[in-house]
């Protein structure tokens, strides 16, 4: 995304601000402005003519019964076709996030001590210390028990144990909150990128909760940190195909098997940033859930930049020179993320932006192409389309980059920053922790629109737009319940370790 040139002096004056506001009100409510005088004119005319004159007018038209019946039939037919062809609404009934136990906590000093004890290379240790200092993580993030050993013991049994711990806690919580019975789950989607055993994690859930034998289960693996929104998209499509169904979506990342024990710098970031987390979401297209559902899914937009070689290789799992496998992150990750975001918002913009912004964008685009290529591109103001933003807490750099690109204020990205501080980078489930933060702070009102943006390997940028159906009042039961009063905290640029 290009950086903005400093605004010319007159733009910052107050008068122009009111002109802009007036323009927005005029264009966004154009139809209202058009209709109001027309309706006023019609009403005046009717009142002026009087009821007898109107009745005489009606008789003069000489409608007979067949014509009236046919027109009624056409109206009813058109109405039915319209209602039947609308997509089924997808409701988010409720969701639950896993709260890690305090026993698994990783303070900075413990992390650095373990790194020193396991890794004999002083340069690697210093590098990891610098990453941790600038990471934006707090002292309460948690790693799974197997990663606490010196050296870590990433066995398959430990990975399964972590999966059972995080997934079953989140699902138990969700079943309790919604009163859902396991036999009522029609669709099950589990996404976990790095751990994919046989039988799959979705089979593990079916086994534990004794789901029906005709449940439609899907297990998405290898799809990176944006897989949570891919699962939601898949659930939405399935809920269009099957009426009156419940879909359980479980987003998690099992980090036990992925501890990197080598010395290559590009592979060390996941050790420092990835932490334990999971979220379970209940989606439904049943009409009766509309009354108690929290959100309705409005749009899902998926963007994949895998066709570009650079984007494809920027998050790449491979073995280093010594045979240790790890995920290597390339240096131009931020640039690629910015590109992917640009494509994504080009698609989502017309769907969500108010007319005023779209016209400005269109005019600037035409002007740049036709009149003067030197005009700076107009970045639409997404703050007019959404009240809340959930940006994947992939790292401090990602949040900073998006805050700059979308021109968001500190309060808009507060949920993302605080989630990164309290829970670390929990991969696909971080969006749900952020949403829970916003609810716990009491900021979620009926009618608010939320934009969830996820980034992932591939390189993918996925967005989901939700509309809030009922005001959520704190205190909210969830992972933030015991610590929300301490937030927001001020996170320094660099923490001295």
């Amino acid at each position, binding site marked *: 995304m290009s950086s903005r040139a400093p605004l010319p002096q007159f733009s910052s004056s107050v008068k122009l601000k009111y002109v802009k506001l007036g323009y927005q009100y005029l264009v966004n409510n154009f139809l209202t402005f058009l209709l109001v005088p027309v309706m006023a004119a019609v009403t005046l005319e009717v009142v002026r003519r009087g009821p007898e004159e109107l009745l005489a007018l009606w008789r003069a038209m000489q409608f007979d019964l067949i014509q009236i019946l046919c027109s009624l039939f056409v109206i009813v037919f058109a109405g039915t076709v319209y209602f039947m062809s609308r997509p089924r609404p997808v409701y988010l009934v409720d969701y639950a996030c896993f709260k890690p136990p*305090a026993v698994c906590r*990783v303070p*900075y000093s413990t992390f650095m001590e373990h790194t*020193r004890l396991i890794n004999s290379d002083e340069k690697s240790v210093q590098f990891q210390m610098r990453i941790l200092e600038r990471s934006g993580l707090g002292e309460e993030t948690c790693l799974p028990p197997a990663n606490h*050993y*010196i050296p870590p013991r990433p066995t398959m049994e430990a990975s399964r144990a972590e999966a059972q711990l995080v997934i079953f806690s989140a699902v138990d919580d969700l079943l309790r909150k919604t009163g859902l019975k396991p036999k009522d789950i029609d669709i099950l989607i589990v996404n976990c990128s790095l751990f994919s055993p046989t039988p799959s994690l979705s089979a593990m859930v079916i086994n534990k909760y004794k789901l029906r034998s005709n449940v439609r289960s899907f297990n998405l693996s290898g799809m990176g940190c944006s897989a949570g929104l891919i699962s939601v998209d898949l659930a939405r499509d399935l809920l269009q195909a099957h009426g009156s169904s419940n879909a359980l979506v479980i987003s998690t990342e099992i980090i036990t098997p992925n501890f990197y024990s080598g010395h290559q710098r590009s592979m060390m970031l996941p050790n420092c940033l990835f932490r334990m987390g999971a979220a379970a979401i209940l989606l439904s297209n049943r009409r009766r859930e509309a009354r108690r559902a929290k959100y309705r899914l409005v749009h899902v937009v998926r963007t994949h930049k895998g066709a570009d070689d650079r984007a494809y290789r920027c998050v790449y799992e491979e073995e280093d020179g010594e045979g240790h496998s790890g995920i290597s992150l390339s240096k131009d990750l931020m640039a690629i993320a910015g590109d992917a975001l640009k494509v994504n918002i080009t698609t989502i913009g017309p769907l969500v932006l108010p007319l005023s912004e779209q016209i400005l964008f269109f005019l600037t685009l035409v002007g740049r192409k036709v009149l003067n290529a030197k005009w700076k591109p107009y970045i639409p103001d997404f703050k007019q389309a959404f009240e809340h933003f959930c940006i994947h807490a992939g790292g401090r750099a990602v949040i900073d980059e998006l805050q700059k690109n979308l021109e968001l204020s500190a309060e808009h990205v507060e949920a993302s920053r605080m989630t990164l501080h309290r829970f670390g980078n929990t991969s696909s489930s971080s969006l749900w922790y952020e949403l829970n933060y916003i609810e716990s702070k009491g900021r979620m009102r009926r009618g608010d629109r939320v934009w969830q943006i996820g980034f992932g390997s591939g390189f993918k940028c996925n967005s989901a737009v939700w509309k809030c159906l009922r005001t959520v009042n704190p205190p909210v039961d969830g992972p933030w319940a015991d610590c929300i009063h301490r937030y927001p905290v001020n996170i320094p640029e660099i923490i001295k370790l």
Partner: protein
Amino acid sequence: MTAGRERRVTLCAKTTAVSAIPVRPGKTHPLSALDHAMARHFLRLVFYFRAAPTLTKSRLMNSLSEVLSYYPAVTGRLHREPVEDAAGGGSEWRWVVKCNDAGLRLVEARAHTTLDEWLASATDGEEMDLAHSEPMGHDTSIWSPYCVQLTEFDDGAVAIGLSSAHINADLTSAILIVRAWSDAHRRACIVFPPFLHAPALDPRPNPNPNSALFSSKSAAAAASTEPAATTKMSSATFVFSDASVKSLLSDAGDASPFDALAALFWTRIAAPELGAADLTLGIDMRKRMHAPLPYAFYGNAFHFYRVRGVDLGAGLSRVAAEIRRVGEGVREEDFWEAVEWLHERRPGRREAEPAFQVYGPELTCVEVDRDAFAYGTPFEDNDGCRPAHVTCRVDGTEGAGLVLVMPAAAEGAARQVVVTLPDDVVAKVCRDAAIAKYEPTVLFAPAGVKKG
């Protein structure tokens, strides 16, 4: 350990236990002069518990995490902090515990035997396999002064081993850490929460540094620049039942169990040379001060004093009476003078003298856990879960050795005595008829010593 016998304890894994609540950043716990003096010693405690449904590794680690929230000084790391020097030299330092929330080392182990078999047959060396400790190394910022070992026996019994640098805590503090852990495990109120107030043992406004005992120890340490061929030390535990101690008290006249047992072991260790001899004694000063410190005062608060020129041939009751007389004559003044003497010469100061052994090298006898906290640490709600046995050992006691007298598992006057002495002396004491007269149960003796 006898050669050819396989190790019965295998270490499975090493991890770090952290507190449940983060420590406020920047917190430090300075160490007192008495703490600094203990730099050469290490504590090793082992608590044995019979199998119980809640004594599982995961639940023990959970309750340990909770209790560590009360002990930020236990989860910290030792750090040499430069001290503002009055003369402006700037080269002085002192030990400080930086409460950086790093946690304490936790080792998981398995013992391939049952608890009863272990208590019947384990030697002193094997027992220390249950309290793993790591040497300090040169980088104290990544070395955990505390190490907890959880060992599971074949029959489900659990041994909790706690090893600690003596510089951080004395035996009372260490025992009360485990006591607090047991309270947290039972979800009961912690009866003795730690009192973390290091300035409690700062020198008085008008210091009067004077300690004949420490001066002589320090001179001896400075004189022997070359470490003498260290005699091999072993250990044994004698458990005296209530009846035995009562019969000993009837023989020893008007004395407390500690005085009587100290006299008994002193005479039998020195035998057959029963002439005039000196003995160093140590007691916990927490409750013997004018402004008493709480039991759970965290740190070192033991006072060492000497009994001189006692004629060991004069009979048990005379020796016991003499010990008692000197013990009652210990004044709080003496303790403060010793602390101030140590304060002047603590390591890190320019006037520092080389570190000396506090427990030894002369024969030392210490009364531990006078208020019987060690055996009062049930991890479950019913009384049947009190420890089956508790061991206290101190490392670094070369020389004539150390005798620790502490309460035993049985109620009443029962006592146990843990001796750490040169090999031949231990063998002699284990076979000694005068001690055997009181029918002690001998546990954890060196291999090859017939248990009398």
